[in-house]
């Protein structure tokens, strides 16, 4: 069991002992190293000024995999075994700018320049992962970066122009050094009275959780990070799940997609969309690439927020969860997991190990609509999902679940009952829309009023009907693209 955090920065191996386990990567860069190119804009992973790139060795090939992440909410020990690449890494002393940087200069992509290092890093991740992105792919890659000055047009121009420039003399990737890191064992950092554990097996995790039932489980940190940066909470015991190999797997059986709880949202979505392509629209609007790279599907589910976007679709798909503890395993339906606002059927010492999503049956349509003020990187006012099976124009089975409409994400039972067995017609939908008002009594908040939530959820059901009956082929988001 190691106690030293080891990672690569600019080709050097950095070894840190006795680190504060909830010190953020951004604090480490700016305050400890005085490496101030990376900026703090919001300290909650929503503006992208702090974007850095993490390189990890590919498990199944020689190369490295690059991910843009928000350094403001990543805890320092999560860098263990990885390479950290910052804006300073792109242009070493006596070398010219990286093509990404040069393109930003050539296209006038910076004005005040404060968001620019973050954009440069998101563009760098794009540059290394996509040889010729479309406008939509560029938009998607930059969805987590806010710019208040330029209006984005010159940044998009730079995203195209960077491929036309001569490649960099050397890229800041150090796979060989990364391979030298000896990080296969578990990590335990003691910092005063506080503890940080990074176990590597599920059994070890279960044992730790049995010993520390009140520990904070940390996965991607996209929520826990804010407990520290915004609520100033002191976390005494943190158990980090992302190094547990047994939580990292994606497997597809004859009947299910099985996703380990610590699989990133990005990887989980890719696996799900392969079988449920209709969910691509939802996942594209789900947070931003840095959040999807760091955050996990298990975290989204286990966090249990009433506005989590993955759960309505997974719920109607019939997803079950594997919960594990030192005492053993049990299986629970996702829809039974949420008991009340922020209350889950999760016993002390138990953790979410796996998400099991049934493969789609034939003739089943599964779809999800998300509604928010802004297209990208916004929390849903309403997120609805539907599973529909038709038999000769009649509804053989219909399931619907909504987020943002109640204290938990849950099924719309009255609405479902109004449609099951009925003809799939506009008249049936009218009745189902009325029934939906019996299912939910949403609240008003800064995202939307209660009236809008309900009305929009009803209208979205109508939209689903129009889409399935071929009367509506496009959405505003696809229009003209």
């Amino acid at each position: 069991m190691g106690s030293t955090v080891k990672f690569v920065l600019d080709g050097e191996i950095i070894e840190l002992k006795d680190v504060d386990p909830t010190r953020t990567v951004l604090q480490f860069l700016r305050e400890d190293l005085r490496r101030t190119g990376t900026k703090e804009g919001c300290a909650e992973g929503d503006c992208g000024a702090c974007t850095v790139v993490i390189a990890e060795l590919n498990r199944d090939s020689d190369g490295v995999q690059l991910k843009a992440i928000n350094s403001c909410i990543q805890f320092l020990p999560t860098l263990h075994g990885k390479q950290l690449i910052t804006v300073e890494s792109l242009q070493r002393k006596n070398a010219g700018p990286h093509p990404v940087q040069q393109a930003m200069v050539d296209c006038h992509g910076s004005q005040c320049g404060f968001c620019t290092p973050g954009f440069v890093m998101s563009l760098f991740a794009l540059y290394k992962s996509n040889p010729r992105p479309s406008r939509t792919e560029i938009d998607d890659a930059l969805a987590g970066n806010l710019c208040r000055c330029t209006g984005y047009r010159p940044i998009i121009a730079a995203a195209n122009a960077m491929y036309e420039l001569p490649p960099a003399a050397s890229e800041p990737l150090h796979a060989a050094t990364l391979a030298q890191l000896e990080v296969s064992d578990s990590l335990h950092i003691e910092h005063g009275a506080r503890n940080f554990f990074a176990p590597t097996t599920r059994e070890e995790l279960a044992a730790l959780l049995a010993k520390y039932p009140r520990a904070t489980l940390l996965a991607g940190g996209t929520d826990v990070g804010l407990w520290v940066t915004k609520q100033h909470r002191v976390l005494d015991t943190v158990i980090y799940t992302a190094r547990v190999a047994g939580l990292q797997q994606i497997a597809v059986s004859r009947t299910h997609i099985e996703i380990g709880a610590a699989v990133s949202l990005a990887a989980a979505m890719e696996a799900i969309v392969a079988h449920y392509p209709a969910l691509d629209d939802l996942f594209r609007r789900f947070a931003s690439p840095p959040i999807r790279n760091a955050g996990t599907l298990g975290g989204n589910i286990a966090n249990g927020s009433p506005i989590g976007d993955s759960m309505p679709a997974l719920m109607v798909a019939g997803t079950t969860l594997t919960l594990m503890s030192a005492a053993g395993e049990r299986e629970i339906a996702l829809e039974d997991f949420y008991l009340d606002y922020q209350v889950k059927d999760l016993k002390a010492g138990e953790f979410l190990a796996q998400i099991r999503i049934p493969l789609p049956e034939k003739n089943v349509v599964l779809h999800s609509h998300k509604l928010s003020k802004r297209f990208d990187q916004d929390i849903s006012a309403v997120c609805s999902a539907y599973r529909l099976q038709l038999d000769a124009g009649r509804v053989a089975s219909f399931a619907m679940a909504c987020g943002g409409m109640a204290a938990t994400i849950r099924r719309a039972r009255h609405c479902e009952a109004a449609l099951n067995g009925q003809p799939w017609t506009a008249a049936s939908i009218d009745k189902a829309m009325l029934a939906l008002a019996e299912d939910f009594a949403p609240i008003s908040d800064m995202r939307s009023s209660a009236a809008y939530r309900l009305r929009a959820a009803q209208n979205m059901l109508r939209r689903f009907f129009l889409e399935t009956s071929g009367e509506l082929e496009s959405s505003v988001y696809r229009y003209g693209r």
Partner: protein
Amino acid sequence: MGARAVGQALPHDSARLHVSGLAAYTDDLPEPRDLLHVAVGMSRCAHARIHGIDLTAVAVATGVVDTCVAAEIPGENNCGPIIHDEQILAADVAEYAGHALFAVAAETVDQARKAVRLARIDYEELEAILDPLQAVAKKSFVLPSETLRRGNPEGAIARAPHRLKRRLRLGGQDQFYLEGHIAMAIPQEDDGLLVYSSTQHPDEVQHLVAAATGRPVKNVVCICRRMGGAFGGKESQAATIACIAAIMATKTGRACKLRLDRDDDMIMTGKRHDFVIEYEVGFGDDGRIHGIDFMFASRCGISADLSGPVNDRTMFHCDNAYFLENINIVSHRCKTNTVSNTAFRGFGGPQGMHAIEYVIDDIARSLGLDPVQVRRRNFYGIGERNVTPYLQVVEDNIIGGIFDQLEHSASYVERRREIRDFNAASTVLKRGIAMTPVKFGISFTATHLNQAGALVHVYRDGTAHLNHGGTEMGQGLFIKVAQVAADELGVSVDKIRINASDTSKVPNASATAASSGSDMNGKAAQIACAKIRGRLTEFAARHFNVAESQIGFGDNRVAIGKTSLSFAELVQLAWLHRVQLWASGFYKTPKIHYDRSTFSGRPFFYYAYGGAVSEVVVDTLTGEYRVTRVDILHDCGDSLNPAMDIGQVEGGFIQGMGWLTSEELCWNAAGELTTHAPSTYKIPTCSDLPVDFRVQLLANAGNREDTIYRSKAVGEPPLMLALSVFHAIRDAIASPTRPLPELQAPATPEAVLRAIEGWAS
């Protein structure tokens, strides 16, 4: 004479530093070894008498070195920029949720922020006014209400063939600069204080810091090399932050830095004013306005701040580009128990223009006319129908020509027809199109602010050091002024060192605001450089015995009769002959004058113009929409730097679009702002940029006034081009059952669906 720098699309002077992370913002500066970090304790109540602030637990918290409440401020407890009506730390009464009550200095940022939470405040809650209309009813104002009246509006409205009236709500907007407010104050020997501040107005920071810490102004220096965005939000607001840092530095004798967390920044600092607007208009069959009556009630918050001139500008811009002969404008500056609102790009102008554009759109829709026709019929004339309600004659009107050119280049007529056909066949998706004008007055309306200074040093190697009173917030002011200086000295831009704004170099400078930065500082730098060049010319003529007319500067050389020297050689020679090689320049904008008591005069040196055509597609089931195409034609005069100017046009447009669409400020019933972080306050992202975005600067535009190289100011005017997006949405959702939809701004999907289906909020 050689290649000119002015007019070239040079990159931002810091572009290479921006992209490499080497551009230093205030928080990136090296920190003194004894630096303390400051955090601010805020009121949780919107309105309360403070019976006690118990900081016992705060004072003993880990790392805490000192605390401060109002009574401990060494100097004047004021940060009001015009009227001294705003305290730095609230003394007896907290007037909004977020009002600063005390400050803490600790060894680390984290310690200071944690310690703040340990305070025990004894509140006696008082009744709070949370809405402008509530304030009007209670006559709660930060400044007296104003009325501007010309002609006979009541008579004209009464006699007009058609009349309409309406009440509108128009939301505010957070500046959302990416770099939050920050200041670092460093004590210097002999009572000196050096303040690094992210500010548009170093002079005001210097003066207010001096007053707050009980120093003469001469002992305070304020420096700002660059801001990470500002947009008006760092015009007056930066002083509060700097004052708190300076007070703690004075109290502790140690360097102190205050960097606001994003949430605190959004809660504690002012925004664009939201408005309630009422209008009644009388108009003819042709859509021409006969008479109009406006009531504006704006949320000013707890103090006057800049609300006086902001609301004056609303009154000056509720004509936009239209001749309004019979008009009555009532402007209420409402005192509410919310944060004191302040400057934001457009400075009240956008709200006035939104009002009149809504009127025009209503008139057109009620008559079944194309709104573009109605706009044209109401435009100011040339040589007639050209007097504004504040009695300035519009001498430089080019809006008609801009509309002609834009209508053609954007194929407005054809597209409008095609959209009608599309909508007839489409039930759920509806498209809309709108073309709107911008006419924006350039100058500070307070005449005395229209002055600027510059300081230029030429060194013996022929390079030059440039200072002026302007600040750089990303708009490209520094490179533009450097281009001017380079041309005036006949050297290339790389010979000019651009320096931080510094009150010890150029004193008494106005805020970099009102779009006036390059107009005024460009002229001041030109004047300074011309003095140096004049001395060099005079010297060279004498020394080489040639006529002054035989001497020319350019391309880093000086032609002297038939020979030539490098600029550096001439400078060296001049130094040996004891010629002064530095100079200051001072500029004041000519022609302007204005009598606030009668709302008349010539407040604006000239107007900047522009036009935009926007097209949208709306989902009538959810109210969601996308902007699909935008065509812009904007007037920058003869651009000093087209790359910077296009950047201002595009960026201003998207920012204006955010104001009118996704950016919604919400307060709860207790008066707390609930949208105080990017997770809840949604500025546009990359994918909101229209796929088809065509931006042109008006060619050969010039400026009939003698501005710097006949350019025009560009900072604010393009923001209001985004009114076209709002009206395109309205165009898309207007239907036979609801021909005049009640669309409120911001037009969030909820607001759009409400307007489509006609239900109340």
